[in-house]
């Protein structure tokens, strides 16, 4: 079958009524969790997993994917209206989006954000369709050293993006992988670190850990505030952007699409870097860079387009290689495994319904988001006004139902509570949970490929550098590490010199 036959086949799957409904539910829920404070797409996907177990796997993944890119839309609403980013990917939108809202132009900011996201997401999907299958075919030639190198690169990028401390990000990634070794060793069948607890025989479940770190942990942090968002005085105005807005944003949207798509392909980068890069590029090439940060529409259009383009491009490493780009796609990876679907190079050949059905459903999702969200912005603003003291018990209840009903096991409820406490303490000590989860998810792939590589090379670590692809990937990882370490060492040396001089 050629690519167009595949696309047609994908639409046949995506247009089945139950899949349209799942896509609709996913994007609406995604927008909702993007808007709501203290509830992100990671925790929501985990909560929904038990419900999706009753669905056909394709329908379930269509819904969860819709939730992911829907949250990118929702996150921008709080960034623009209340200067609080709903998602990490919409942080940069606050800079000009909120300023626009303060000037009474919140409507056009929301409008261009939705339209830019639609254009970026849709164009990015075309790239996904044409690139994912060839990458999957190419990946069939990968051996253990290549898989290890890709995972190493993904972990290096995720940890280097840790906002608080890269070194602490590494510690978290290592601890996550260490927790991932709990359970049966696939090579020998020996139990590791289970302490005789039967629930741990299959390893520590991903969902209780994620719900603990991102659901309960976030709630515990918000207990200190327990306040709702103040959207009282923010003016929204007309939603539809003016002709001048269009002219000012058109190139920013196209550049944001390219930046988002390219960066979304890199395992580990996810959609987090692309809005920042897009904003920096727009400011750099602008004729009036001094106006950035005062409410210019290019500062909203570029980053908002980039984050959606990136989030859809991140499905390429997930579906073609089985490597998640960020924590959200890590949860999707976990979900695929629970459904009995193995992501990776063979997915395109073995489960074309899953691959092409999910990809084409994203076109529908993007259309739904732009058609529904423009008139529904008023509703989302009302939802922002719900007091957190009412949301908090509801979120905790959904976490409890979600974790308990996956396996009907109360031990997993306690694991969630434990990781909630750990997540809270991690945040208090400036450790970030995202590298931990990436480490946990990648742990089996990293261990397996690491051990197999060493067996192949009879114990020589050079195998990771002497094979062309793994060598290039390892060198990129080393460059990323050096980019962090060299300035750090320079600063330390300067501090020591100053101390000696004193």
């Amino acid at each position, binding site marked *: 079958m050629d690519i167009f036959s595949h696309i047609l086949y994908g639409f046949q799957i995506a247009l089945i009524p139950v899949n349209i409904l799942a896509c609709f539910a996913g994007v609406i829920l995604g927008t909702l969790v993007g808007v709501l404070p203290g509830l992100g797409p990671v925790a929501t996907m985990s909560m929904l997993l038990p419900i999706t177990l009753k669905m056909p796997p394709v329908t379930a993944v269509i819904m969860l994917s819709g939730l992911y890119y829907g949250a990118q839309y929702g996150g921008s609403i709080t960034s623009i209206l209340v200067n609080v980013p709903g998602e990490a990917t919409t942080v940069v939108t606050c800079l000009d989006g909120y300023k626009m809202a303060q000037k009474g132009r919140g409507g056009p900011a929301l409008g261009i954000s939705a339209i830019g996201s639609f254009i970026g997401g849709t164009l990015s999907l075309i790239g996904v369709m044409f690139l994912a299958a060839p990458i999957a075919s190419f990946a069939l030639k990968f051996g253990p050293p290549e898989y290890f190198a890709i995972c190493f690169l993904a972990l290096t990028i995720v940890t280097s993006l840790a906002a608080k401390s890269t070194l602490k990000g590494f510690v978290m990634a290592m601890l996550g992988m*260490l927790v991932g070794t709990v359970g049966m060793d696939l090579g020998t069948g020996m139990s*590791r670190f289970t302490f005789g607890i039967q629930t741990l025989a299959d390893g520590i479940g991903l969902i209780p850990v994620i719900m603990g770190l991102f659901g309960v942990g976030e709630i515990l942090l918000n207990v200190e505030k327990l306040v709702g968002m103040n959207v009282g005085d923010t003016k929204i105005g007309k939603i539809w952007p003016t002709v001048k807005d269009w002219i000012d944003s058109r190139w920013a949207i196209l550049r944001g699409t390219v930046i988002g798509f390219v960066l979304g392909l890199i395992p580990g980068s996810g959609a987090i870097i692309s809005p920042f890069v897009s904003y920096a590029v727009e400011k750099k090439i602008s004729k009036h860079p001094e106006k950035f940060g005062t409410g210019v529409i290019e500062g909203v259009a570029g980053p908002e387009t980039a984050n959606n383009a990136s989030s859809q491009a991140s499905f390429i490493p997930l579906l073609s290689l089985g490597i998640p780009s960020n924590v959200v796609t890590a949860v999707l990876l976990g979900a695929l495994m629970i459904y009995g679907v193995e992501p990776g190079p063979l997915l395109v050949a073995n489960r074309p319904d899953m691959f092409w059905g999910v990809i084409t459903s994203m076109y529908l999702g993007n259309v739904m988001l732009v058609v529904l969200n423009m008139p529904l912005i008023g509703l989302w603003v009302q939802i922002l006004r719900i007091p957190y003291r009412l949301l908090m018990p509801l979120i905790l209840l959904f976490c409890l139902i979600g974790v308990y009903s996956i396996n009907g096991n109360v031990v997993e409820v306690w694991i969630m509570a434990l990781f*909630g406490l750990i997540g809270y*303490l991690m945040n208090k000590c400036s450790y970030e949970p995202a590298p931990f989860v990436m480490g946990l998810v990648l742990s089996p792939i*990293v*261990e397996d490929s690491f051990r197999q590589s060493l067996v192949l090379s009879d114990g020589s670590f050079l195998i990771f550098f002497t094979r062309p692809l793994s060598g290039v990937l390892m060198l990129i990882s080393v460059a990323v590490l050096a980019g962090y370490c060299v300035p750090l060492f320079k600063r330390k040396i300067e501090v020591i010199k100053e101390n000696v001089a004193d």
Partner: protein
Amino acid sequence: MKAEYLSSIAIVVISFLACAGAGKLGVGRIGSPGPGFFPLVLGGTTGILSLIILFSRLWKGRKFTAAQSRVSAGVVIKVVCILAALVAYGFFVEKIGYVLITFIIFGFLLKVAGTKKWSFVVGGAAVVAVGSYILFSWLLGVSLPTSPFGI
């Protein structure tokens, strides 16, 4: 700052225990790694990185005074209450059934979150307990434990 020291020390201890446990599992040799090899590598690397963090904090601690982020007693009580509620939920959900435990825990959480009116707490908890049971169990087919009375 104290929290930073304690967290680094805790991670060093965990790393040491992981290395010790990995040693017992059997490390093998580099060309033929055993089940303990990978945890040993991870434990060792984590321990070294945490020691670097610890010593760099000790170094900074002598030179700079960092503002400590204090948590009030009220917040600590709320955090403990929420965690206790989650643990209690696990203990009782299969013994007294979903609806009753959800009613109790949800009402408790509403109070912890600062809802003052008892009528709202009781009414809200009852609506959420019954409503969520209908939604998840009847409509979405999620398996939830029932009490001896059938719900």
